[in-house]
């Protein structure tokens, strides 16, 4: 028996030889390997039997991906979109853009250079495999997104006299101090119950290198540490001054500064380097989908009613937006990607449980401010090329452009950004400000980190997701209790209707969640069609 049972690796190799890489990948996925994002390649749909016509509501990434794949499988698709643009929350602001937010204020973007502000998604982890696969298939050019730049800043208004500290310095100091403490405990026999004598020796040896400790297991300035942490006087050429290693920060001061906590911003698997972004703005991804399906998209269509009957759906919409000509569109199936915040205000024929689910999910607060400056002073004077700085000021983070390095002329900082997921209350207050007030506040806080702000400022723009009438918030703010009660119902096919979008995923707010939700919805719809 053992002779005839192949190992998993042998089995996979056999499948690969016989059926090709795609089949091997499918097999790997079903066996639990390589299944990081739940993405198993482009969906293999059987195609329509009776119900050929599919009406999709919303031309964001979920709606357009659903249209793209269902049409490939032979369905007749149509998309109704409320806005006069495609892309949904995948949105990039550039110079010349104008937008009227809820409350009537105009968002103006007057950037002079080629800088931009991604109002929604702005960086992609490589394990979001569906996004990367579609970018590959649709020809979206990517460049690296520097998520962690050791030279970017950590800042607290109440620590280090308000002087920003380098991320790398804080991280290495904490590593050094913790290594020293652990070595001390090991040497004093404090951990003899936990480690064998052999392990203790290995640990001590490793801690010395890892934390850059001296022969007495002390973390202190040395040429060795200079080679790891950097220099007060860096090694130079010719007759330049003798090098001098940098001085570590005191442990207690670091612990009370809050800066160690800020390093944890980089710990998330979602922000694991390397990350990527499409060249020229995140909307390159949805633009690529729009190119594939633009002939089936009807813009300026505001859905007011989703009616279901035995053999199909009838969607009523206002052609031209609120108050426009009322029209109806019938179809065999409906895929609705309208955010739940808006959908809850639309009359939908569905089960009571689904209606409750639609109305149950709060939509998260999130905002951004983008500021354009005359020149890249953060590169020229602070040596920060790309990456993100964090602060305990209400602006929370400053992200530097990861394109156009060293170029002359204007450049754009993502100068303030937070979401409700961070747990801080600042985002609500930013959202309650006028566009001008947001810019003023971002400048007032930002100059505490970059004093060059005042001299170099050109113009600013902002985005507040709670003031966007087609999303009424940024993303579905699920809790475990809400998921237990409503998630499955929300995602199930209700007669002829299925919902999709980031709100129908376990990766809220991310493009990957929207894509996986759409792919899963159309797979189940296709199965239902062919059942």
């Amino acid at each position, binding site marked *: 028996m053992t002779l005839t049972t192949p190992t998993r690796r042998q089995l996979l190799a056999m499948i690969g030889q016989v059926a090709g890489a795609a089949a091997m990948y499918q097999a790997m996925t079903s066996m639990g390997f390589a299944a990081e994002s739940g993405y198993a390649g482009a969906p293999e749909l059987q195609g329509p039997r009776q119900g050929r016509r599919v009406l999709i509501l919303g031309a964001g990434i979920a709606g357009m991906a659903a249209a793209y794949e269902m049409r490939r499988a032979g369905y007749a698709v149509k998309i109704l979109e*409320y806005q006069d643009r495609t892309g949904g929350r995948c949105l990039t602001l550039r110079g010349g853009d104008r937008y009227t937010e*809820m*409350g*009537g204020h105009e968002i103006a973007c007057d950037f002079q250079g080629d800088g931009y502000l991604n109002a929604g998604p702005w960086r992609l982890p490589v394990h979001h495999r569906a996004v990367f696969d579609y970018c590959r298939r649709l020809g979206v050019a990517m460049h690296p997104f520097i998520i962690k730049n050791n030279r970017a800043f950590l800042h607290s208004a109440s620590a280090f006299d308000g002087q920003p500290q380098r991320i790398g310095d804080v991280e290495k100091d904490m590593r050094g101090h913790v290594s020293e403490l652990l070595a001390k405990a090991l040497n004093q026999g404090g951990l003899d119950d936990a480690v064998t004598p052999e392990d203790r020796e290995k640990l001590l040896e490793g801690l010395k290198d890892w934390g850059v400790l001296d022969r007495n297991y002390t973390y202190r300035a040395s040429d060795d540490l200079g080679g790891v942490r950097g220099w007060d006087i860096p090694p130079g050429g010719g007759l330049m001054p003798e090098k001098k290693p940098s001085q570590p920060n005191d442990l207690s001061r670091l612990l009370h500064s809050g800066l160690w906590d800020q390093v944890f911003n980089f710990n998330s698997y979602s922000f694991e380097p390397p990350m990527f972004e499409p060249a020229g703005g995140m909307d390159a991804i949805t633009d690529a989908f729009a190119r594939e399906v633009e002939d089936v998209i009807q813009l300026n269509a*505001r859905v007011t009613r989703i009616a279901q009957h035995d053999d199909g759906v009838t969607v009523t919409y206002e052609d031209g*937006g*609120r108050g426009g000509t009322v029209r109806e569109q019938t179809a065999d199936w409906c895929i609705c990607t309208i955010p*739940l*915040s*808006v959908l*809850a*205000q639309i009359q939908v024929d569905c089960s009571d449980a689904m209606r409750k689910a639609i*109305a*149950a*999910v*709060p*939509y*998260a*607060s999130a905002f951004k401010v983008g500021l354009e400056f*005359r020149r890249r002073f953060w590169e020229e004077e602070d040596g920060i090329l790309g990456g993100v700085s964090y602060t*305990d000021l*209400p602006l929370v983070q400053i992200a530097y452009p990861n394109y156009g390095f060293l170029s002359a002329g204007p450049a754009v900082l993502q100068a303030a950004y937070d979401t*409700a997921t961070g*747990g*801080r*209350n*600042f985002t*609500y*207050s930013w*959202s*309650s*400000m006028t566009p001008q*007030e947001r810019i*003023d*506040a971002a*400048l*007032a*806080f930002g100059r505490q980190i970059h004093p060059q702000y*005042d*001299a*170099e*400022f*050109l*113009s600013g723009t902002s985005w*507040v997701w*709670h*003031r966007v*009438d*087609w*999303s*009424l*918030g940024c993303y579905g*703010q699920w809790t475990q209790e809400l998921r237990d009660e409503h998630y499955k119902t929300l995602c199930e096919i209700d007669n002829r209707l299925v919902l999709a979008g980031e709100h129908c995923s376990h990766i809220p707010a991310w493009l990957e969640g929207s894509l996986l939700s759409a792919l899963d919805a159309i797979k189940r719809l296709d199965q239902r069609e062919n059942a």
Partner: protein
Amino acid sequence: MTPNPLYLFAALTVLATGALAQQTSTPPPPAQDIDTLLSRFSDDPDHFTQTDGADLYRATCQACHMEDGRGAMGAGAHPPLAGNPKMRSKHFLAGVILTGYHAMPRFGHMMSDDQVAAVTNYVRSHFGNDFPDVITAAEVADLRPPEDE
């Protein structure tokens, strides 16, 4: 040591360029205005530190319900608090602030009973609303879901 005249010249040029840039950039708003503006943020990221109903409204509710309490409408709508019959019940409004309602997030974990009472009473006595009955912090405490306590 005498400074090298070339270096001095370079430094002056940089200063002059900086001054020029300063002149052509938009002047920052007056300090008083900025302080007032920045005071609209809580001093604590976890809990609102404002205590006055108007200040709390401006830091939270105003994002959606707007300066005039009339909400806003487009594809979807943020409901008005002005002339809204649901405002008749102080318990309803305080409960919504505590636990959220439909797409509206909850604020109970970021506001004390006193703060929820203050903003509830503010909304019910402004924007054309004129309900005489006020809610007390003790009444808010009774409405608070157990997990908030």
